[in-house]
């Protein structure tokens, strides 16, 4: 009975985090972007600095009519948002936030493989949406999504493999237990590759070619309205939370901090994740969109060699210190 209650409570907490953190990132994006562009952003909803803007947006989305285009493949079209969103919920279960045994939703033995595999499944949602909408802009968006995923999955995996080699384990809590501060300079190239490839996988600017609004309207999501569209947006922000959390755990030491790791480990994790999320927003405001050929070139001629060099370096240092 106690075990069942424990599992239920953990899943409930993970679910709450899954619902709250993406909204926090979304609201931060509204305000940070606004201030970087010399305006105020939402100010009215909720009274204090427009804190309830996203709640109001949610209510608006829920009221809209759910339209399925006449020529669309109904079932695939309707299923796609769920396929895009649910993987991020599953990934969140495996991310450890503190040093104690209870500070992770569920310990997964092959943690790195679990999170990368499940995150890859999320992209199927965009592909399904792109094909099933019966719209040429959606189809182009889907094509670009697939091309981008195939290019950036490899450097992301290689960078994660480098950390697994350094720690000698593929479990996420295990990696954090093995972490030392000097891993930070040692794995910095891998961290950059992982973060950039993750941004590309989430289709965030400057890698938002698949949803480039000036060319193909909104890519695979063009035909979506109401709640289903909101689910795709939620998937994007949940993706930011997951990517920043994973980069924190794999490369920035997660709950390790200069002081107070025992009681306040989870604060360090959240702080590092928040700083990375801010970086994601900052990049959106400050970088122009990469063209399709530039995207592919960056992945194959820069990120893959860098990731391979990082693996070589990790191997050499690992052998040298043994």
């Amino acid at each position: 009975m106690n075990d069942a209650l424990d599992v239920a409570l953990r899943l409930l907490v993970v679910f709450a985090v899954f619902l709250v953190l993406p909204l926090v990132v979304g609201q931060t994006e509204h305000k940070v972007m606004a201030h970087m562009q010399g305006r105020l952003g939402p100010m009215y909803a909720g009274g204090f600095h427009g804190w309830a803007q996203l709640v109001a947006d949610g209510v608006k989305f829920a009221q809209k009519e759910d339209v399925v285009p006449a020529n669309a493949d109904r079932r695939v079209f309707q299923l796609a948002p769920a396929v895009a969103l649910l993987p991020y919920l599953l990934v969140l279960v495996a991310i450890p936030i503190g040093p104690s045994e209870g500070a992770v939703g569920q310990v997964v033995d092959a943690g790195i493989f679990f999170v990368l595999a499940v995150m890859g499944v999320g992209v199927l949602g965009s592909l399904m949406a792109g094909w099933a909408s019966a719209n040429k802009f959606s189809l182009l968006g889907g094509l670009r999504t697939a091309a981008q995923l195939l290019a950036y999955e490899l450097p992301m995996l290689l960078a994660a493999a480098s950390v697994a080699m350094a720690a000698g384990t593929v479990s996420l809590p295990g990696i954090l237990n093995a972490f030392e501060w000097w891993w930070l300079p040692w794995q910095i190239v891998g961290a950059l590759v992982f973060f950039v490839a993750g941004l590309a996988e989430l289709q965030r600017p400057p890698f938002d070619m698949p949803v480039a609004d000036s060319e193909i309207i909104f890519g695979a999501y063009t035909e979506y309205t109401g709640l289903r569209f909101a689910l795709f947006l939620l998937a994007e922000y949940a993706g930011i939370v997951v990517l920043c959390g994973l980069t924190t755990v794999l490369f920035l030491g997660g709950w390790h901090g200069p002081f107070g790791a025992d009681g306040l480990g989870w604060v360090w994790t959240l702080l590092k994740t928040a700083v990375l999320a801010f970086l994601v927003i900052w990049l959106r405001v400050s970088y122009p969109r990469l063209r399709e050929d530039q995207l592919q070139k960056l992945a194959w001629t820069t990120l893959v060699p860098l990731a391979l060099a990082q693996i070589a370096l990790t191997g050499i240092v690992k052998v040298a210190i043994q």
Partner: protein
Amino acid sequence: MILAAQSPGFLSPSGVEIAFLLVGLVTLGAAVVTVTTRQLVHAALWLVVTLGGLAVAYLLLTAEFIAWVQVLIYVGSVVVLLLFGLMLTKAPIGRSPDADSGNRPVALVVALAAAAALVWVVVDAFRTTWIDLDGPAQGSTKASGEILFRYWVLPFEALSVLLLAALVGAIVLSRKNTGEKEGPR
């Protein structure tokens, strides 16, 4: 048969065994739909269900590492590649009547032969081996890694050379085409 019915036995199946059987049925059903459906993209999506079902079957057999690699490689990459190809050729929504190549009987024979060979090999290899679910996981990453790189290094390396050859072959084929186009100019 008699041996297999002993000790763990078929007659009092545990919850995991029932779940394994159900997952197997779902996987089989999805696989059959994959090859019989007339809608190209639906076939690719049913393939996702099939491969996912296989991953769950691995999980139930405690081979966690293999299960996640299965999802990563097949669902995350191979199916995405398939869908990419289908989108490039503008696979229509609805039925594609011209998708049948007319090789149905031959394909059936090949499929049955492959299935028979696989079932025979697997049954012959494992016979009445039962996995102890309560003990330490036999398919954990550590165990898989040790078995792979201690006892099966040679097949592993041979496979990697085979894949490398395929890769080089693909590059050669794609190079040759561009060379012929440029030749007459």
